[in-house]
């Protein structure tokens, strides 16, 4: 059995005028069939670029310069552009962060959904219409027939994101890439939309790679968690492992920063926002030679600044890229 998605030493770099920005610098993890894996980290850590890399839609001036991406045992890096087009939207679909700008304002909802069906399936307009309406109903969009003729600007943010979810799951993909799908929504509808997405994905057996920085969400929906920092995976494990036994100082810091969870905050230290972890995310064009988190890490040793830590296994499913965990492996 192949995992649905297996990413191996992925490197996506941006060739800018000021230098090469290593947006993704050796990322590796996998997602099994029907699994929900959350990728967490601060903005700019390469989470979204990882999703776009899977679809091979990295925007200019970025380029995948190394690594492998396997979908169901097939190496996507070896696919032609035409073969990639058959993957996109059919076997792998994506939900974007901003429903205000991710739906095309110039076309009706129906037009965009029908297009999504007909680009991959031989279906008549009527069949595609039927299928779209049914899918809109599954994501709890009220009066789906009428919405088909609406333009995106006529819907609320929550409704638009339901449309996006419907479109993404229209063809029962094996993998759904969800890039912070609820961040832009009102807090009141976030939970509903998330719920609809998870339920619909579970129903169709679709594995989900969910990108988020909201750890409360992660604890609710994720089977496993991948923690990224400055274009690298610093720690991964099951949700339980990450939340109860965080091994990387960065993960520990992340957990301390969420107000609703106190598992990691044993001491009575005041809860600090993330950016007060001390220092800033290093510039991706000028990463330190050792561990990228080293300049902000209070536990750093000499080795951290000098050499990049590999991922040290801490258990069957748990691993952390931290020199402090070397002996435990």
């Amino acid at each position: 059995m192949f995992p649905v998605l297996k990413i191996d030493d992925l490197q996506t770099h941006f060739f800018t005028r000021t230098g090469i920005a290593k947006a993704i610098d050796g990322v590796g993890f996998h997602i099994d069939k029907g699994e929900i894996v959350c990728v967490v980290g601060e903005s700019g850590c390469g989470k979204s670029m990882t999703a776009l890399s899977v679809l091979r839609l990295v925007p200019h001036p970025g380029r995948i310069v190394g690594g492998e991406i396997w979908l169901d045992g097939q190496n996507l890096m070896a696919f032609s552009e035409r073969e990639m087009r058959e993957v996109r939207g059919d076997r792998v679909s994506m939900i974007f962060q901003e429903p205000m700008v991710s739906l095309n304002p110039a076309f009706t909802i129906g037009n965009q959904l029908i297009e999504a069906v007909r680009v991959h399936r031989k279906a008549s307009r009527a069949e595609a219409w039927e299928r779209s309406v049914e899918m809109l109903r599954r994501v709890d969009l009220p009066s789906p027939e009428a919405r088909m003729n609406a333009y995106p600007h006529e819907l609320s943010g929550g409704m638009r994101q339901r449309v996006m979810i419907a479109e993404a799951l229209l063809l029962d993909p094996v993998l759904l890439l969800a890039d912070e799908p609820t961040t832009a929504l009102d807090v009141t509808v976030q939970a509903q939309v998330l719920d609809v997405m998870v339920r619909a994905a579970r129903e169709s057996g679709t594995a989900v790679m969910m990108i988020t920085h909201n750890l409360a969400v992660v604890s609710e929906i994720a089977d496993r968690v991948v923690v990224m920092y400055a274009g690298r995976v610093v720690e991964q494990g099951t949700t339980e492992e990450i939340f109860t036994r965080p091994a990387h100082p960065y993960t520990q810091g992340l957990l301390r920063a969420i107000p609703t969870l106190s598992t990691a905050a044993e001491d009575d230290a005041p809860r600090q926002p993330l950016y007060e972890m001390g220092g800033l995310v290093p510039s991706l064009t000028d990463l330190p030679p050792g561990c990228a988190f080293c300049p902000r890490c209070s536990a750093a040793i000499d080795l951290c600044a000098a050499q990049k830590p590999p991922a040290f296994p801490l258990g069957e499913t748990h691993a952390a890229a931290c020199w402090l965990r070397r002996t435990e492996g």
Partner: protein
Amino acid sequence: MLAYFLKRTVLMVPTLLLVALMVFLLVHLIPGDPAIVMVGAEADPAAIENIRRSLGLDQPLPIQFIDWFGRLLSGDFGKSITSGIPVLETILERFPTTLVLTTLAMLFSVAIAIPSGVLAAKFRNTGKDYLFMLVSLIGVSVPGFWLGLMGLLVFSVQLGWFPSSGYVPVWQDFWQGLNYMTLPSITLGFFMAAVVARMTRSSMLEVMRLEYVTHARAKGLSEWTVLLKHALKNAFAPTLTTIGIQYGMLLGGAVVTETVFGLPGLGRFVVQSIYGRDYPAVQGCILFIALVYMFVNLAVDVLYKVFDPRVKF
């Protein structure tokens, strides 16, 4: 849509009044006595007096304007001093040629501008794009009438592809007429083509950065569908506004182009009337062209909604 059209037309009235006022005041920019300027100082004093009276120049200015405007509303654009023919009659006789010329020029420019703008955006920052930028920059730098002269030299005189003189209206003999119109409309439309192409390129680039374009790609659409359906429809709205504004450039440029090619359109008539100091005719033509231009832009605003459904009527 009709309601919006009517509402916009009503909103246009103050501007329209001002435009009329400005055209009216034109005659009063003439230094000295307009009547003498029109018929010449050596003319018979009785003739001068006659002109003065027939144009109402002996009345106070506000009365003159009200009179003039009242007659305009009833479709009376005044009479030509030189020929005595009602100006509107000549305008309506001459305008079709100008309309055909400017419409062909517009069609030509849009037909080459939009594809090349889209291609330049697709191949941005490559050699093809730089070549496009260079050609379009030269396009907005070349005087259209000079291009017309060069076109005459090369294609009519040297190569003999097009007639270098004479004129047959398209409504008499379509292909023959088209033959006479090709060179004028291409040289007239060249500038506009460059402007519209540059606009298409930059609004395509603007749109292609947006998330819905990435979304369209993530659906598995081909790059051409993404560009021509998802990006272009959005990029076209600002381009359409440019086309509307540029139509005014065509109407203005037609004055010179018609002179270069000897086409009997409204523009040529304006120039002839200026040479003949036939101010009522000049006023009538300029007002008429301004009206046409305003209505074209009104139509463009209404059309805009088709490409950008977010616009509220």
